[in-house]
């Protein structure tokens, strides 16, 4: 697989620090929900930096050449500040993908699906929710941990998905909650017990977020009796990484 040039078709601000970039990619081969792609920037002096970002959109059909990335700006980052603040409609962007075959959800997969995201870790989970809305029949739950109400990425999209019978969405606020939501705090064992699917449900769980978040949640799930082989994780750190 080699690098190719995509064109920015649209940009949408999602939160103060995150934005969705709609890319037009000629001859896009299609992707599975949860896959990502690498973005490469080249400076005038030839210096190159590449980072991996989760694809936020489900692949619509074989005639589609449009994909979406949602990028959260990393303070002091090499790539994300450019993607969030500088890149504009019509600009070219060097990409390589889709890549990754482990942290993916396929419509033919059996059993319910538990999605657990922290911050911009919701991005590949959103692709899974979108793919599920088109082709899935099994129950899906999303547990989404955010700092405060303004940090929620895809607010209207999640509301729309939550209105469907197949999807159950639960937001967890770690710093500041909206009016009427008494709980402020991280995901813990009680919350997993209360809102996550149970081990006996035979769910496959996808956990994505910053490395410490993923480690904590994966450990909580295993402690609650979930089979480690059915807990799939994707971590990202402050240097960038899949998101």
């Amino acid at each position, binding site marked *: 697989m080699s690098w190719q040039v995509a064109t920015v078709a649209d940009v949408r601000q999602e939160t103060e620090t995150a934005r969705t970039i709609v890319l037009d990619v000629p001859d896009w081969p299609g992707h599975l929900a949860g896959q990502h792609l690498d973005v490469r920037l080249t400076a005038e002096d030839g210096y190159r930096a*590449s980072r*991996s970002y989760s694809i936020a959109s489900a692949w619509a059909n074989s005639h589609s050449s449009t994909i979406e990335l949602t990028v959260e700006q990393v303070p002091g980052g090499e790539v994300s500040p450019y993607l969030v603040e500088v890149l504009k409609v019509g600009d070219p962007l060097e990409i*390589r*993908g889709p*890549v990754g075959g482990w942290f993916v959800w396929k419509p033919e997969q059996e059993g319910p699906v538990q999605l657990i995201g922290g911050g911009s870790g919701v991005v590949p989970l959103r692709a899974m929710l979108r793919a599920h809305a088109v082709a899935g029949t099994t129950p899906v739950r999303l547990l989404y941990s955010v700092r405060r109400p303004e940090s929620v990425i895809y607010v209207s999209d999640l509301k729309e998905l939550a209105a469907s019978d197949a999807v159950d969405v639960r937001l967890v606020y770690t710093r500041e909650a909206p009016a009427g939501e008494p709980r402020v705090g991280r995901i813990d064992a009680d919350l997993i017990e209360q809102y996550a699917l149970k081990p006996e449900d035979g769910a496959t769980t996808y956990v994505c977020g910053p*490395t410490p978040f993923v480690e904590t949640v994966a450990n909580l799930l295993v402690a609650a009796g979930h089979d480690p082989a059915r807990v799939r*994780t*994707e971590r990202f750190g402050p240097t960038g*990484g899949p998101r």
Partner: protein
Amino acid sequence: MSNYLDGNAAAGALSELFAVDLTAAIAQCNGCGHTTVFAESRVYVDAPGTVARCAGCDTVLLRVVTTPNDTYLDLRGLTYLRVPNS
């Protein structure tokens, strides 16, 4: 060093070298024998290249370094990689 990602972060670099997706491959660590899907390894991208370490014992499983002319692939920490026949 706790600033690691996981095997998924190496997917792009590996896709230039292998015809199959290695992140879903089963990998055995040559250091401790820990056997798991490659996506669960710990990947460091801060180095001049990509380094994957065993989540069990921290042994370097794999390194990919790209220079302007060549790519170096070092697989010394892997006993094997198991990929399904397509």
